[in-house]
């Protein structure tokens, strides 16, 4: 009888914890500092897929763990800002029955870790980033300086141009594509009038005319890779410039990130390096023309959709000079392969045409 009672208590506890979507791990209960914050940074680190890679010595590194370490360092140095770090890990069930909350939101305010929330996605078909945006709206600081800046940094695999089922290995029914990403990050903004100063897409193949067109209403600048970004990894330590040079422009900050990333990659990898910074105000006059020009060359062929981008200038009667305003490029061709001879890049990536 005693064992039955114990089993009942355990089961009840598991069911109860499984029903809740979030729970606070560490409410440090620090005295809330209600003074205004100068900037907000959102890191979204995707780990619900295959993120295995190997160091030159052959040692495995998993789950975008190095990016998480960098995010913690940045957050601990953000003396006047607020940092949200989402670490989205595969969802599993205890004993195959009780959903576990394996994803984490680390909330730093003025360099202090004020909250760690573990969460899961209750609706397996929810809109992309909906759970994360809801959490942020509940806990973010309302008091902001007039010069407040907002940054959104996404680390993951290529956000595909369409469909995107299966992007999350354990949440395959959530549609992840360029359009759902754009509408998803909009929900992180403070108000309808608010904009990001910079969106960083630490992914492959997302420096495209379509992505720029979709993000234009929500951000001033975009840092992305039109083709390959090895291991989805932009270096982001340069965010600490917000402390060292208060009021630094998002363009200058993004240039520092690109410089640092390029220098690291140039020394270590053999594949193509393509990093592009887009000043979307400068790009605005021609983006619709460019997006329609490149999309008319696109195909619904699924095989092509899963291939790497090529330089848009390679597949169109494309006047590269007409689409250079507001585009800064860090480029090094691959050491081997078919594109090893290309010495320049337009800064825009497109899916190759079907053969």
């Amino acid at each position, binding site marked *: 009888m005693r064992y039955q009672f114990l089993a009942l208590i355990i089961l009840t506890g598991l069911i109860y914890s499984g029903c809740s979507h979030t729970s606070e791990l560490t409410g440090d209960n620090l005295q809330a500092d209600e003074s205004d914050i100068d900037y907000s940074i959102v890191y979204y680190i995707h780990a619900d*897929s295959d993120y295995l890679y190997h160091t030159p010595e052959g040692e495995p590194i998993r789950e975008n763990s190095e990016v998480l370490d960098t995010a913690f360092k940045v957050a601990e140095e953000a003396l006047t800002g607020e940092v949200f770090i989402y670490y989205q890990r595969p969802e599993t069930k205890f*004993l195959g029955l009780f959903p576990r909350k394996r994803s984490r939101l680390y909330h730093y305010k003025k360099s202090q870790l004020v909250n760690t929330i573990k969460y899961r996605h209750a609706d397996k078909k929810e809109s992309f980033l909906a759970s994360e945006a809801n959490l942020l709206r509940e806990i973010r600081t309302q008091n902001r300086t007039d010069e407040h800046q907002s940054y959104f940094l996404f680390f993951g695999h290529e956000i595909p141009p369409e469909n995107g089922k*299966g992007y999350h290995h354990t949440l395959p029914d959530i549609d992840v594509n360029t359009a759902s990403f754009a509408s998803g990050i909009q929900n992180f903004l403070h108000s309808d009038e608010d904009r990001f100063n910079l969106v960083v897409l630490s992914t492959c193949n997302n420096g495209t005319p379509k992505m720029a067109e979709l993000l234009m209403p929500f951000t001033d600048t975009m840092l992305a890779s039109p083709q*390959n970004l090895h291991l989805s990894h932009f270096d982001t330590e340069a965010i600490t410039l917000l402390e060292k040079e208060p009021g630094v422009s998002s363009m200058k900050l993004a240039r520092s990130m690109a410089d640092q990333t390029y220098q690291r990659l140039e020394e270590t990898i053999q594949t193509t390096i393509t990093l592009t910074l887009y000043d979307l105000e400068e790009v605005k006059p021609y983006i619709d023309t460019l997006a329609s020009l490149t999309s008319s060359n696109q195909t619904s062929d699924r095989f092509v959709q*899963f291939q790497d981008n090529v330089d848009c200038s390679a597949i169109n009667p494309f006047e590269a000079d007409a689409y250079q305003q507001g585009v800064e490029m860090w480029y090094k061709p691959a050491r081997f392969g078919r594109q090893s001879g290309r010495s320049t890049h337009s800064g825009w990536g497109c899916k190759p045409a079907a053969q």
Partner: protein
Amino acid sequence: MKTLNTILTSILLVFVFQTASFAQSTNITETFKEHFNKTVQEVQETDDADEKRAILNESFDKMIHAIDQIESKASLTEDETAMLDSYKLGLTEKKSELNGLDGFDEIMDEDLDDFSNFSQDFIEQANRTITIGVTTALLILIILLLL
């Protein structure tokens, strides 16, 4: 006591069943990455260029063959087939370049270490993932093919 045993047995069965289900959704690109990481280590441990070339050729062949086996034995969606075909095309290109086929110049002996790194960079590139579930039996077959 009998009731307790029934409860515990039920929980155990559910656990075993769910563990088996989880194994079926193992990601196959991780298997390829682990395999090719060993290839790169082997290439860089030998000084003999012919041996380096042979190791790389064998490794590409095994991965291409494993993909062929998946495509012939698993029930795949159109997207999954397209993903696998794209992955296979990349591997086939690397093999052609290694051997100077299909319009490529053959990789020079002194560049074979760098070429193995280049191929690993390509395989571990951020968009290189195949998110398909395969059966446990097929996964075991793939691993055996790669050994």
